[in-house]
């Protein structure tokens, strides 16, 4: 015991193996192990020791005698190496402590729990089936959440005093005002790119002025709302999911429920309503930025003066297109916040689930927005 303490205080001594052969003895090979048989002690001379151990395995184990008593320190790594070499050995000298470690390690290497699952030929089919069931469960839960949102919104309408105005205005600010710089910059750049590309094509046919129709309708009806809601999904949607998810992890959701506070009224409704209010406003600003980009490019590549552009715009784009765009943004805002809340409330109290929830929330809300957009495009194809 004292030796072990001393050696630890000293600089680590490497593990050593001394092999000695005695002639005319029933057990001719004598092996002394000394030094520190630990992870650190085995590091420097591991190749040498491994080779020696390999060589020793060729000798029948009954003709080998081991002496482990000079070992200063033995840890699990050292014991594992020794345990393999010691299998079936005839003579072994070791302290009680060392024997215990060796037994434990030998036991550990015998354990063969079914860590790897056997290959299941039906695994892909099972995976598809499970994915479908998951999807069905999500749809069911989302429908239930939608129902609860509608019911609680109805209850709030009857008692407007309970409306969580502070949360609502905070959410409008965060999802709306704070998102403006990014969304407007992206809108401006997309406006430039779109106008430039259309201008290149239209110039060939001498239909320069049509660029106002194409870009105007495209931006106001499609691109503005889409850009705004995709950026909102990435910015606000992920934040909402993460917030609800963390509240689940820290048990804040449970604390609210236990106090009798409705999660829907307090956490979900303000977010959903706020984004449904904020997104049309953001989309409006995105429209402006994109049209400003278009105006700039038409002035410099097509030579259309800004006054002419602004005069032609209302004629080229019927106002109904603008209202369709704004209405769509409201629906997109609702969808993004709703999907984000749905995934946020489904987060389980662990970090993995939180990360997965945020990822899925962003992917699902963008998909949702695009599906909704397609539905709007079909339903409103004869309008504007």
């Amino acid at each position, binding site marked *: 015991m004292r030796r072990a303490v001393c050696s630890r205080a000293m600089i680590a001594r490497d593990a050593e193996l001394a092999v000695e052969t005695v002639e005319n003895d029933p057990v001719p090979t004598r092996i002394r192990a000394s030094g520190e048989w630990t992870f650190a002690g085995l590091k420097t001379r591991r190749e040498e020791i491994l080779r020696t151990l390999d060589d020793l395995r060729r000798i029948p184990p009954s003709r080998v005698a081991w002496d482990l008593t000079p070992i200063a320190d033995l840890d699990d790594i050292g014991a594992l190496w020794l345990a393999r070499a010691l299998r079936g050995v005839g003579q072994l000298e070791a302290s009680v402590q060392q024997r215990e470690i060796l037994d434990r390690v030998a036991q550990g290497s015998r354990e063969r729990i079914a860590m790897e699952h056997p290959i299941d030929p039906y695994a892909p089919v099972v995976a598809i089936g499970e994915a479908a069931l998951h999807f069905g469960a999500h749809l069911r839960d989302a429908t239930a959440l939608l129902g609860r949102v509608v019911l609680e919104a109805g209850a709030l309408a009857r008692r407007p005093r309970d409306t969580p105005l502070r949360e609502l205005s905070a959410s409008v600010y965060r999802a709306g005002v704070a998102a403006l710089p990014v969304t407007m910059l992206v809108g401006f750049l997309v406006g430039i790119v779109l106008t430039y590309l259309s201008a290149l094509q239209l110039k060939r046919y001498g239909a320069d002025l049509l660029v106002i129709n194409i870009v105007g309708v495209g931006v106001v009806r499609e691109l503005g709302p889409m850009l705004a809601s995709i950026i909102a999904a990435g910015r606000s949607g992920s934040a909402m999911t993460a917030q609800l998810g*963390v509240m689940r992890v*820290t*048990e*804040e959701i*449970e*604390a609210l*429920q*236990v*106090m*009798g*506070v409705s999660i829907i009224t307090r956490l979900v409704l303000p977010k959903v309503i706020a984004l449904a209010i904020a997104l049309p406003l953001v989309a409006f600003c995105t429209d402006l930025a994109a049209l400003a980009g278009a105006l700039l490019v038409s002035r410099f590549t097509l030579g259309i003066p800004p006054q002419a552009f602004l005069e032609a715009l209302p004629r080229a784009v019927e106002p109904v297109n603008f209202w369709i765009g704004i209405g769509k943004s409201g629906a997109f805002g609702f969808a993004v916040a709703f999907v984000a809340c749905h995934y946020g409330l489904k987060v389980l109290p662990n970090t993995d689930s939180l990360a997965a929830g945020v990822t899925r929330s962003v992917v699902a809300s963008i998909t949702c927005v695009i599906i909704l957009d397609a539905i709007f495009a079909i339903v409103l194809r004869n309008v504007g």
Partner: protein
Amino acid sequence: MSADPTEYAIEVEGLVNAVGRGQVLHQNLNLKVRRDEVITLIGGSGSGKTQLLRVILGLKHPVAGSVRVFSVSWYDPSLKKVRDARRRMGTLFQNGALFSALTVFDNVAFPLRERGGVSEKKIRAIVHAKLAEVELAPHQGTLLPANLSGGMVKRVALARALALAPDLLILDEPTAGLDPDRSERFVQLIKRLRADHRFAVFMVTHDRDTLYALTDRVAVLGDRHIIACGTQEEVRKLPHPFVQSFFGGERGRALAQGEAAA
């Protein structure tokens, strides 16, 4: 306070509770907590103490059976009744579950603001009184939960649980994660508050010290139901292996004798 004294704080009848894919955790479980007592739930690890607590708190739907707090089921169609019952109950979660975005003051004020009907000035007075009750200085009210030590989190959470002057306090491992000195002080705090306010306490704990100091009755959860519910002396005689190992250790016996001598 105005409630009639024969009313039960918690009634659990014929509870069947399952986790995951139909693995039954509780079977035909019955438990009653009187209006004026401190009852402690003990049980081996994995016996479903936390799950039982979640069912009682209404965070989990039981498969069958009924749970009533102040004679109200959490699934009562009358939302007003449920809300009123909720407001008569304060809960201290194991890790505090403070609202991390709100300051200490706002955390304690939250249930009061949520209930409404009280001016902000009065709320401020009540919150400061509650903070003083759990031995926190008024200037600590501006701290965020992230800046608090473990013991302070528990005390703030206790202040929040007591904000509405509840008739029932539910404690989940009230002393877990506190060092022995702190947990002793926390137990004394609860004891003192209880002497002032006479609320019922339902708690889950592993800590025998807490148990000896506070409890009127002990409920033992094992083999999927409450195997015994009575005073410590009654429960101690039970020949169940968990009870024997829980009370039987040297430390447990010494403590019990110390308690008896005191």
